C-alpha cells in the first residue's frame, strides 16, 4: 500500500492503495466516482475511458502509480452542470439505449475534439473504434459528436 495524491476533476484527492491498482478501481471503489465504467479490464472496450490531461486513457490499464499530478478528468468532472457541448449533444440526439458505455464514449470524444475540433466522419470512426456500444448506438454517437464539433 502507498499514499497517492491525485488531481481529479480539479480536486486534490488522497488514496492509500496498492500502487498497481488501476485508476478505474481507484475511482470506483475508493473515490466513489462510479461514472467511469468497468467493461473488459484489458483496454478493449473503452467503457472506462477518462482524460489524462487532454488525452483519452483506458483507466482499467492505468496504474495509479503512473498518474502523478497530471490532471485526471472523469465524466463527473467533464462539466459543472452537464453542459459540455458533447453532453448537450448526447441529450439532443437522445443517444443512449442502456447507457452503460456512454460515459466512456463521451470521454473519448472529448479528447478527440480537443485534438481535432472539427473531425470528419472517417476521423470520428477511427478515433471512436475502441469504444464498443453493444446496443448499437453508433450512428447517434457520430451525429452527436458532429453536432458538438459544429458548435
Amino acid at each position, binding site marked *: *500500500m502507498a499514499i497517492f495524491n491525485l488531481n481529479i476533476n480539479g480536486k486534490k484527492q488522497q488514496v492509500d*492503495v*496498492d500502487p*498497481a*491498482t*488501476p485508476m478505474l*478501481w481507484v475511482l*470506483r*471503489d*475508493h473515490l*466513489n*466516482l*462510479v*461514472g*467511469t*465504467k*468497468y*467493461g*473488459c*479490464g*484489458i483496454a*478493449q*472496450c473503452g*467503457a472506462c475511458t477518462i482524460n489524462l490531461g487532454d488525452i483519452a486513457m483506458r483507466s482499467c490499464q492505468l496504474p495509479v502509480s503512473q498518474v502523478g499530478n497530471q490532471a485526471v478528468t*472523469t*465524466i*463527473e468532472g*467533464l462539466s459543472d452542470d*452537464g453542459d459540455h457541448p458533447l*453532453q448537450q449533444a*448526447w*441529450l439532443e440526439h*437522445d*443517444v*443512449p*439505449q*442502456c*447507457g*452503460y*458505455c*456512454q*460515459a466512456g464514449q*463521451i470521454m473519448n470524444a472529448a479528447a478527440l475534439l480537443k485534438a481535432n475540433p472539427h473531425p470528419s*466522419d472517417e476521423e*470520428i*470512426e477511427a478515433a*471512436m*473504434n*475502441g469504444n*464498443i*456500444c*453493444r*446496443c*448499437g*448506438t*453508433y*450512428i*447517434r*454517437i*457520430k451525429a452527436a459528436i458532429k453536432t458538438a464539433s459544429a458548435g
Partner: protein
Amino acid sequence: MTIVKTTYGRRSFLKTSTLAGGGMVLGFSWLASCKPATAEEILSMPKEWFDINGFLKIGENGLVTIMSPNPEIGQNVKTSMPMIIAEELDIDWKNVLVEQAPLNTDIFTRQVAGGSQSIRQGWQGLRMAGATARKMLRQAAAEAWQVPLEEVTTEAGMLHHKNSGKSAGYGEMASAAANIPVPEEVELKDIKDFKIIGTSRKNVDGRKIVTGQPLFGLDYRRDGMLIAMIVHAPAFGMKLKSVDDSGARAMPGIKDVFTMNTYEEGYEMQWCDTAGFKEMVVVVGNSTWEVMNAKKSLKIEWESPADLESTAGHMTKMAEAGPSLAKVVRKDGDPEAAFKNAAQILERNYSAPFLAHNTMEPMNFFAHVTADKAELVGPIQTPESMEKSVAARLGLPLDKVDIQMTRQGGGFGRRLYGHFLVEAAVISRKMSAPVKLVYTREDDMTFGNYRPAYYVTYRAALDENKNLLAFHVRAGGIPESPIAANRFPAGAIDNYLAEEWAMESNISVGAFRAPRSNFIAGAEQAFLDELAETMGKDPIEFRLGLLERAKTNPVGDRNDYEAARYAGVLELVRDKSEWGKETPNVHRGVSAYFCHNSYVAQVMDLAIENGKPIVKKVHCAVDCGIVINPDAATNLAEGGIVDGIGHALYSAMTFKEGVPEQTNFDKYRLIRHSEAPKAIDVHFVKNEIDPTGLGEPLNPPIVGALANALYKATGTRFYEQPFLGSKQVLG
C-alpha cells in the same frame, strides 16, 4: 371514447398501496434521492405526495411521479411506459417524474423484460392506471365544486368546470382524490386525441447517464459492503476437485475464500435458474482490485469427464444428425410427391455458431441477507421469478425477499437467468454482511447461457416452368430447433413440410435477443432470395406473390401471421428505398420477417471498399402498431439492425474440450463504430393497432438482407455465420 371496466389487479388501487417490505411508494427507491431528471421546470419538490394508485402519486404542487413497472435494459420502457400513463392521466409531460417501481406483483403485472412484451402486455393496464387517476381527480373536483362529474373536464394537469368557470390543478385535488373509492369503469381516450403517445420524448435517465450518476447495478454501494467474485470450472462439464487458497487468504483485503454450491441438492430448478456452473470457489474482500488479484492466486484442481465438448465438429455433426433425428411439425399437401416429380430442386444449408450475450455491464448483484430477510439490488430481467428462487434457496418466505431493480447495462436475454442473485444471496448469508457480487468480463463471457448453435436445410421443388411446387424446411440445433413452422412461407405454398430436430450439449444455452428468429429469419430470407433468383423473379415481387396467396386463399388454418401487414411493410420498404433504382457500386439485399407480434422489412445498400463490407444505408419498414415514443423507437430499431449485422458478420463463441476459446473482447469480435451502417432510415406504418414488440423484431431480418446484399456485391452466397469468419477481405 372507449369505456373499460377496471377489472385488473383491483388491489392495486387500494388507497395506501402497501409495497413489499411494508413501505409506501414514497422514498422506496434508492435512486429517488438523486436529482430529478425531468421536471426541471418545477422549482420545488412537493411537500406532500398523495397516492392515487400504485402507478402514480401526485404532489400538492401538481408534480406527478409515475412508477415505471418493468426492468429497463436499454429498450427505453422507463420513458415509454410512464408516457402511456401520463397520456391517460392528461398531464403535461414536463411535470412528470419517473421512478423505477419496486417489484410488487400485487400492483404491477408482468414485471419482466423479455419477449418484447413490456409495452404490448402493459398497454391496457397502463392506460387504465392513468385513466383511473384522472377520473378520481374529476370526481374530487365534482364533489368540491358540487357540479355533475360529466361537466368536469381536464387539460394538461388542470381540472375545469366550464359553466361555473371553476378551475384547479391536479395537485389541489390530489388529497381528496386519494380518498375516493376506485371507479368501477373508466373512459380511455380516443387514439386521435393522444398528445403524448406518438410524440418523441427524451430518455428520462438521459441527464444522469451523460453526467455519470450512479444508475447501474455495478454502481450500487452500501456502507460495510464487501466485494465477492467467483471462480467457476474452466470447461463446461468439469467438476471441482480441490482448492489451495492459502496464498489468496494471505493477500491484503481478503476476508474469506470458500466453495459454494449455488443450488443445493433437492432444490427445484426453475427455468430462470439455468446456469452452466453450479459449484464454484468464492473470494470475498474489501475492494474489487484486491479480490481480482486474490482470485488469480488460487490453485484449483478440476476433474474432467469424458464428454467435454468441442465446437470444431459441430457443423458436421449437425449436418449429419438432422435427417436422422427430424420429426415432422407441419405438413400441407403432398410435399414428398412434389419433390419426386420436380424438374429442379434447390437445396441449401445454413448455420450459425454459439454467441455470448456480452452485455456491457457484466453480471453482478448486491445482496444483504440477514437471519429473517434478504434484500437484493441490481440488474435482472426476471425479478419476480428470481424472488422465488432466492426465497427457496435461502428457506425464507417470499415476502421476506425484496428485489430492487437498477438500470441495466444491457440484457439481450442474459439477465433472464439470475443465478447470480442466488450466488450473491448465499455469499451474503455466509459472510453475514452486505455483499456485491461482481463478474469479471472473463467470468461473464465464459459463464454464458449462450445463443444455441443452429443448422437448417431448405429445399424447394420447381416444375419445368420454374413454378414453385413444394417447400421443405428441416431445422435443428444444439440444443434446440429454431423452427417456427406456422410462419411464412407456411400458408402460401400448397405442398409444405417442416421438420425439426435437436441435439444435447453440456454447454449452457439460453434466450438471446429474438430467440430462434435471430437465426432462422436470416437463413429463410437468404433462401427465398436465391429461390426467387432461380425462378427468375424479383425478390420483393416473389414474396408479395406468396403473401397474396396467403391472404386470399391460405393453405391450412394455423398460420400465425397476417399476410396483409407482412405485405404492407414490404411494399413500404420497396417504395421508400426506391427498389429497382441502380446506384454504381451499391449492392442491394432485401428481407422481411414477422416475430414478436411485429412486421419488419429491410433493404440494405452495401458497398465493398478495400475488401471490407460497408453498409451505406439500411431502409427499414416496421409495423408494430401504435408507436409510443417515435425517436426512441427509431433508436431501438437502429440498435437491432446494428446488432444483427455485427453478429452475423463477425461474432462466434467457440469451445475446445469444453473450454471457451474467447474470454474477452480481444478475441470475441463485436461490431465497432467504423463497421456500423452509415445511415438507417426507419419508417413506421401508421395505424391504430395496439402496440407490439420492438426490442427484438429488428435484428432477425437484417441478417437476410445482409446475406443477400453480400451476394450481389461478391457473386458468392453466404451460408455460414459469421459471414466474414477468419476472412480479412472480400471480393
